[in-house]
């Protein structure tokens, strides 16, 4: 199960646009068409988006789920260390999620 070089290149271009939030309506339609067309393209899509998501999740946290693997082993550069608006929101959501979990856990006790 594999995809040819040209289709792979098309997918990479579209997925890169997706990762950087610059995929327009036409691009999305083309990506959907390619991904739904065959299982190999879906596999490629999943691998790529999963890589993007893992970088997002792990790099922000600095650890994986086990808490053992340090992904970010270099200090942040000046100016990038503070929480930006987006990452403040991201951490805010995680705090809310954890707080919700604690509250529900107390309710379950």
């Amino acid at each position, binding site marked *: 199960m594999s995809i040819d070089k040209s289709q792979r290149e098309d997918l990479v271009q579209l997925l890169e646009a997706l990762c*950087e939030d610059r995929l327009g309506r036409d691009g999305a339609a083309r990506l959907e068409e390619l991904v739904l067309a065959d299982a190999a393209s879906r596999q490629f899509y999943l691998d790529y988006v999963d890589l993007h*998501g*893992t970088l997002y999740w792990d790099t*922000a946290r600095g650890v994986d789920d086990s808490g053992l693997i340090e*992904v970010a082993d270099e200090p942040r*550069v000046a100016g990038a260390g503070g929480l930006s608006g987006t990452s403040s*929101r991201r951490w805010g959501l995680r705090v809310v999620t954890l707080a919700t979990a604690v509250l529900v856990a107390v309710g379950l*006790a």
Partner: protein
Amino acid sequence: MSELQTTAPQAETPREEFIKLFTRYQRRVFLFILSQVPNPVEAEEIHQEANVVIWSKFDRFELGTNFFAWACQIANYEVLKYREKRRRDRHLFSVDFIRQVASDALEQADELEERRQFLAACLGKLRQQDRELIQQRYASGESGKSVAELLGRPINSIYQSLSRIRRSLLECVNRQLSTQGTS
């Protein structure tokens, strides 16, 4: 008789086991959602909603069954609900696409998790400047655009660099997988 007595470890309560499963699968459930809604901020919002539902259904989960599959059913429902609530917004993908991708993501869950383990090693193999760029792009929670502004580099140059690094990480993970398969 010795005053020191050994005590058998206490068995976990169902609630404790549930909490462990819930915690262990946080990242996997988030990534499952992201496969269907590739905007990480939206995926986090849906993840939060799904977490609330998962917790509220604690007493309906049967310990010993597949927690991840159960949580993903809830998460997929929350993805569709999120779309419905925002039906006036522009959605990138159709419901058919979401259902198909969700089904494949669940089917390939173990393989995807294996790839994530290799990714950590592949990150360690990057050149330092590439690793720093990835950290800036993701750790700052911003975008290629904001990193370009921060570094004073043209945005297309940053997009090209990020693309090259993500491709090389993907290839590295593929190589690690095939090496493992032949060893």
